[in-house]
């Protein structure tokens, strides 16, 4: 039995890099999907709007773990064997897209209606309205909840350890199995998560304060 020393800690720290990378990739892919879904949801076409709504409802009503298993085993059913990292980021991206879609839909809707009227009176097309008038304002509104959601994402990357991908939590499990010092090991793991998430939570709260200050006057 090994002890929980410096090499073990470095192993955990390196795995934290994978957690960050997983978060970044899932967020990047998920935000593309989420943006598209948010606009579909607000589209005038009933079909598009209903489809986006159904997707969001279903993904938000099943555990991320099930999204992970479904995409993992679903793909292998078609004979596609993805490396664990891609399977994990793909399924996290599905989860991210549904939640970001809902956050961003709210942000787009909270841009005052007059902005739509004013821009259409200037003969802008719908795409131009989104591009030049609505989205720049919606992004500002969406920043605090989006950063807040990022915290949820970082924490939820912990479950991809189940498909064998060694990120922060899995590294903690492995070290714990070797050293059997659960308190030290998981306290170290929890501290690293905390050091990633807490500044983000603070940033989210700070941005919210900035928004409120500008709205008050």
């Amino acid at each position, binding site marked *: 039995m090994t002890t929980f020393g410096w090499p073990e800690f470095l192993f955990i720290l390196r795995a934290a890099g994978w957690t960050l990378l997983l978060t970044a990739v899932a967020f990047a892919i998920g935000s593309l999907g989420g943006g598209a879904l948010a606009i579909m949801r607000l589209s005038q076409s009933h079909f598009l709007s209903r489809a986006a709504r159904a997707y969001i409802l*279903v993904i938000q009503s099943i*555990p991320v*773990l*099930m999204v992970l298993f479904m995409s993992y085993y679903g793909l292998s*059913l078609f004979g596609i064997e993805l490396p664990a990292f891609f399977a994990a980021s793909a399924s996290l991206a599905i989860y991210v897209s549904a939640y970001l879609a809902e956050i961003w839909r709210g942000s787009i809707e909270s841009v005052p209606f007059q902005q739509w009227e004013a821009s259409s009176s200037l003969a802008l097309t719908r795409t131009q309205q989104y591009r030049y008038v609505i989205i720049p304002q919606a992004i500002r509104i969406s920043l605090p909840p989006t950063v807040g959601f990022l*915290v949820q994402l970082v924490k939820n990357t*912990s479950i991809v350890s189940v498909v064998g991908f060694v990120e922060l*939590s899995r590294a903690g499990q492995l070290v714990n199995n070797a050293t059997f010092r659960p308190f030290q090991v*998981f306290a170290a793991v929890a501290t690293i*998560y905390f050091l990633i998430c807490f500044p983000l939570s603070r940033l989210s709260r700070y941005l919210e304060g900035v928004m409120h200050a500008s709205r008050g006057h």
Partner: protein
Amino acid sequence: MRIQLQFEPVIAELDLILHGILLTIGLSAGAIILGSALAILLVGFKSLAGRWAGALVDAYVEIMRNTPFLVQLFMIFFGLPLLGFRMAGTEAALLAMTLNLAAYSTEIIRAGVDSIHKSQTEAGLSLALTRLQVFRYIVLKPAFARVWPALSSQFVLMLLASSICSFISVPELSGAAAIIEQRTFRSFETYIIVTCTYLLLALSLKALLFWLGRKFFPQTSGLARIETKGGARR
């Protein structure tokens, strides 16, 4: 390539799934009730006791909200036995879920309590109610009414997060899925059925919480409530 889905072997393990459903419901219900109760205690403690108590509650909330549920679960399941608290997986799961949900609910309910105007508390105090009575009879219910939607979605998230308890071999719904998968080797079929079950559970919980909200926190003004028959009886 032809893909054949065989649901029969999975259906044959129906009792395992049913048992899993009951355990998922039990764990979630337990965590929601115990977690909310703890959250109310913490909010009350924070608003009634001194600044140190407040800082302590804040620290608890921030630590729980900024670390993954999985790590909290491991800490409790693997760590507590070393301190002499030996417990089964299901008990560890319930404890972890309760502590986790309590932290989130504390934050939500505190926001509700903060949103109650100071004049309400002052009016209560001027009627010679104690601070505890003011909190209990004047502040708490309207605070709950205001944050009920946020609280409801947190409860649903907890139901979904209960799936993570399968990591420590608790045979709740996704734990049952893992067992069935090992027995039948029909992974995809198993997870289709289990995912649909989660969907059904989550939607039912949403509907139940919406109904409870309508029943206990009707969105009418105080005057309207006095004038309607239901309000007069109260």
